[in-house]
């Protein structure tokens, strides 16, 4: 059974139809990319899936449960964790603290635990700190753990956001244009990180503009244009799809890039 199924989802903003009857499934441990020109409705689709706002009609099912219209923190608590197109770090906190906050979903300490510090609480805090160190190592930020997050160069802020999302041990990770604004080396480092996350067993949906990145790492691609799904298939199929070429790629030179 699919881990995520988006069924006939429509979102209207007044007269504008941002998403129109979109359906697709994502299987366990798949790496799916959603592509499309600017304004095609990709981020709207992510917002619907992650509970940021409810769809006008249609349903979203995650892990067999109907999560349509649930508030975003509940969707996240269920294991569907997203990142944002514009980096949303806790900029005043350190790099390590950012990742530690990420583990909120998989820990349980509350006010009582914090006040009386029983054994389980201290064990949990220790594992949160150790987990954060490991994740920083995983994305290559171990040397900057104690730096304020906003002092990181932009490309590394992206990696930090991914590490923070990983600390939540997501079952499904939504990455909204993680390579936006990155240079070639940074994009390569990111592609490597995404591939390793995927190999580690996490299901990923990726919105991306960088075609070479998408073609290299995605197993399956969904193409949106003007709010509609116009194609779905493997990278090879999408590359050859006439509608996709017309709507989005515009020419073979982009694909070859």
């Amino acid at each position, binding site marked *: 059974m699919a881990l995520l199924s988006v069924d006939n989802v429509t979102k209207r903003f007044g007269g504008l139809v941002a998403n129109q009857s979109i359906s697709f499934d994502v299987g366990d441990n798949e790496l799916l990319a959603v592509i499309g020109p600017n304004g095609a409705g990709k981020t709207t689709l992510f917002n619907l899936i*992650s509970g*940021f706002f409810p769809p006008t009609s249609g349903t979203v099912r995650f892990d067999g449960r109907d999560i349509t219209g649930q*508030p*975003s*923190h*509940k969707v*996240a*608590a269920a294991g569907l*964790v*997203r*990142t*944002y197109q514009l980096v*949303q*770090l*806790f*900029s*005043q*906190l*350190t790099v*390590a*603290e950012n990742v*530690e*906050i*990420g*583990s*909120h*979903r998989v*820990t*349980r*300490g*509350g*006010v009582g*635990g*914090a*006040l009386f*510090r029983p054994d389980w*609480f201290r064990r*949990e*805090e220790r594992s*949160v700190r150790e987990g954060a160190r490991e994740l920083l190592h995983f994305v290559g930020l171990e040397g900057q753990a*104690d730096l*304020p997050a906003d002092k990181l160069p932009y490309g590394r802020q992206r990696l930090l956001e991914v590490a*923070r*999302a990983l600390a*939540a041990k997501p079952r499904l990770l939504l990455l909204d244009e993680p390579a936006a604004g990155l240079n070639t080396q940074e994009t390569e480092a990111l592609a490597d990180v995404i591939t390793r996350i995927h190999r580690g067993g996490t299901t990923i949906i990726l919105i991306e503009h960088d075609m070479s990145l998408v073609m290299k790492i995605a197993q399956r691609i969904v193409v949106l244009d003007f709010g509609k799904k116009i194609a779905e298939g493997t990278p090879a199929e999408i590359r050859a799809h006439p509608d996709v070429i017309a709507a989005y790629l515009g020419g073979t030179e982009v694909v070859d890039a």
Partner: protein
Amino acid sequence: MTSRVTTFTEPAALRWQSVSPAAGAAMLAVLGLLSSDYVTTVLGFAFIYAIFCTGLNFFMGYTGQASFGQSAFAAIGGYGSAILCTDLGWDPVLALFATMALSGVAAVIVGYPTLRLRGHYLAMATFALGLIVYEITIEWTSLTQGYMGYAGIPPLGIVGFELPTVKHQLVALVVLALFGVAVANRLRRSRFGRALAAIAGSEPAALALGIDVARYKLIAFVIAAIYASAAGSLFAHFVGFISPEVFGVTMVVQSFTMLYLGGIGTVWGPMIGAVIVSVLPEALRGLKEMQDIAYSAILILVLIFVPRGLAGLSSLFARFRRNTEPL
């Protein structure tokens, strides 16, 4: 100003930074004990405000929300303790806990609808809360005795054992304020405290990580209210008399000055700010008519040159020492 100093440096520096303000508070207490009752009283007010501000810091510093109405909960604490101890003969400590609980419940009831608001709207709504409670303390004369105020409130004490002099009470207030800071420090350094910091940093990011933003804001608001209530009760016992003006807008302005001067979002900032803002006008008394001008000038200079507040100075100093150590 949204600066928050929450960087975790190495343990040695951390210990140095957290022990020295406590030692400073203890020294102030000793100083207060050796001075006239007047000085002792000023310091007593300072530590009552330290408790109030430490609570406010949960909501404004750690969680990054604005509340102009915390004085309402101080009023609940102050009037609650006054009525329970004077008319009903309750033990002060029992009244203290009872009014703290009452304030917590009131904060849940008020906060649940109000905390849906953000930024300026939240500031306005909480400001209204302060004004409403102020009006109640004036108008509900059968309960609060209106402008006349409540007199004859017994001093702080435990099960019949009263603290007879202001000096005894100062010691109790310093101990309670340090306890309040210790609790705040424990809460900040935990999953709970991190969730609050996440909300201050970015609400969308907090939501995306599964943090129930509305719930945590409410808890921070309730904690701030409980501290404010305790401060109100302690004020009532310390002075022995309360009237509506005590918990008016002045209290809000005072506490904001303390919070920003001391360092909002830091563990020790509220106490440092409370002590300095309370003591400074008294220290400048010799300047006579220039007193207010000197006071304002000092506040402005501090905010210009140490925008993160005085609590940030110690870490600056620690960094300076590290950088100048010979290789």
